[in-house]
């Protein structure tokens, strides 16, 4: 299997008539993803190379049975589009848009907890389940099917690590970009839980970076709930410390958030941390024995 997207995915793309939206929707379709619809208000009845466009998510779902939404609209419209997709009953929304206001993200996150909709992103490269489906902007040709699940906060770093693994002979069950925004819809923990339950996945690679405490939380979760091996990478050891103005940040987070603190938190729970992307592949080889 794989996680989140596969051969049963029926994708609806919000923003499909925009330049980037068209390009990537068609790219995903060419990979084999079943792209069933697009949504652009006021453009119902048109199509994008045969993919029908609807005014609303409700119409798209009613007509096509879409079960995954990809959001490709500019930041000022993105929160609204995510909420509309959730309201139409779509269980999984993947938001590629970068630059959404933080307070919008907070309202969206809180509302989606109530509707039970899963959001991946925003500001993420999407999800790729090699050989099955690609939703987003991950350059799929670099990856093949296999037993390593990857979850990452950064787009291009995901490609780098995935590629290093591929060169070492590994394929992937799924590659999930959760995005680097202040309020990601899905956390490392949410995705690791899926990989733990997925029988295709034999090794989980977590790629984190400085800021926030998502990696520290993931370390705790892994210690208590994950039996599969996990290898991690943290970017930002040489990043300069940000200058903080107020006291509130320090009161809330203390010394959390640095790369060293994150690596230490993970290692203390038995997760091995590679210092470079190449070291991650070396550790994977050691663990899976190739």
């Amino acid at each position, binding site marked *: 299997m794989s996680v989140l997207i596969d051969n049963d995915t029926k994708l609806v793309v919000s923003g499909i008539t925009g330049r980037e939206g068209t390009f990537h929707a068609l790219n995903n379709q060419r990979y084999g993803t079943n792209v069933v619809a697009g949504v652009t208000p006021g453009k119902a009845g048109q199509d994008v190379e045969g993919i029908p466009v609807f005014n609303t998510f409700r119409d798209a779902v009613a007509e096509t049975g879409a079960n995954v939404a990809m959001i490709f609209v500019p930041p000022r419209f993105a929160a609204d589009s995510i909420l509309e997709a959730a309201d139409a009953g779509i269980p999984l929304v993947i938001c590629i848009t970068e630059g959404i206001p*933080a307070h919008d993200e907070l309202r969206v996150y809180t509302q989606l907890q109530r509707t039970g909709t899963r959001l991946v992103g925003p500001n993420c490269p999407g999800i790729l389940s090699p050989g099955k489906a690609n939703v987003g902007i991950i350059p799929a040709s670099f990856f093949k099917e296999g037993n390593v699940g990857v979850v990452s906060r950064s787009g291009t770093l995901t490609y780098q690590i995935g590629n290093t693994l591929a060169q070492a002979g590994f394929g992937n069950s799924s590659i999930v970009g959760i995005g680097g925004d202040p309020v990601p819809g899905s956390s490392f923990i949410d995705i690791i839980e899926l990989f733990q339950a997925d029988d295709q996945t034999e090794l989980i690679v977590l790629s984190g970076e400085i800021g926030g405490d998502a990696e520290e939380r993931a370390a705790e979760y892994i210690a208590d709930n994950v039996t599969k091996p996990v290898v991690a990478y943290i*970017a930002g050891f040489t990043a300069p410390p940000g200058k*903080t103005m*107020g006291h*509130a940040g320090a*009161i809330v987070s203390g010394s959390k958030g640095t790369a060293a603190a994150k690596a230490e938190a993970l290692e203390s729970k038995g997760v091995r941390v590679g210092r470079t992307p190449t070291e991650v592949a070396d550790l994977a080889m050691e663990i899976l024995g190739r």
Partner: protein
Amino acid sequence: MDLLEYQGKQLFARHGIPVPDGRPARTVDEAVAAAKEVGFPCAIKAQVKIGGRGKAGGIKIASDEDEAREHSGAILGMDIKGFTVHEVWVETAAPQIESEYYASIVFDRGAKAPLIMLSTQGGMDIEEVADTNPGAIATLHVDPLLGFQDYHGRRLAFEAGVDADLVRPVGAFLHQLYGTFIAEEALLVEVNPLIVTPERKVAALDAKVTLDDNALFRHPDNANLRDPSDEDPQEQMAHERGLTYVKLDGDIGILGNGAGLVMSTLDVVAHYGGAPANFLDAGGGSKAEAITSAVEVILSDDKVKAVLFNIFGGITRCDEVANGLIEAFKTLEPSVPFVVRLDGTNDVEGRRILADADLPNVTTAATMDEAAQKVVALAKGEVLA
């Protein structure tokens, strides 16, 4: 975007939060004139975007014109934790302060909700209070879809041990502060100290505000508060060209696409013994012109002895990057060596374009590790085998 204290106070005033009357001043004469307008005694306060100004000597009370001249002269031009004071804020001094409280609202990423904090032990040592007596700080998360309720204010005030007669005014203050936090789309609003006067009134004597850059399109007035002179000249140049650039101390210029990959590149260069001169994210979908601008920004730092290009194309196409680099060499004729690693979308094409151009002083590398090792050697003046 961080605001200066007085910009924060002006924002507070718009939302009905009580703040002292004041004027900004950039010279001693302006400061003295401002002091005469607000009256004596007045507080003369360094305007820099960093906390702990009081402890650093950046805040002084002047009781007459001579003192106003003396204090503003001492504070203007002063260095506070690496920030030079170019401006002071001259405001009415609170004649008597009964207590200094602490109040803040922060965008709590971990809890995914605004976090309100209140303490009766505010003032310049609040960090110590947080360390030694965290129970003295009352905290509460607000449901973002419900918003602030009056009972939130009461609960915080009672838990913080606020005097009975101040529970209502402190609650009302927090309500207004929350309103400001939401309306202005702030990531932080902090008031330290929130003072209690002998008349049992509360007022904000300090303001630390951080706004969300991504939301500035909805707040044009706030967007105008951005001060380009805050930024290092190279950072400013990068900003104008839509690039993310942070200057560092080393001698190896770095360009990559995507923040995570660039951070990782810095780490790998450091891992092989090099010192990065900058962080530069040319962004997703880097076009040829963006690459030329980026090279110009990197080379404007004259400490740079060698440059590393680390590209993994997704939206970014390697052929575009190669063409951008060739263009940059034509216009800028760099005198330092470059190491280029191209992988991802259209990498074969990109590498061929570079090989055909046969640029002087450009070495290619097949992997990130190899690229890092080469650039570290070149920066040390070694000749590559």
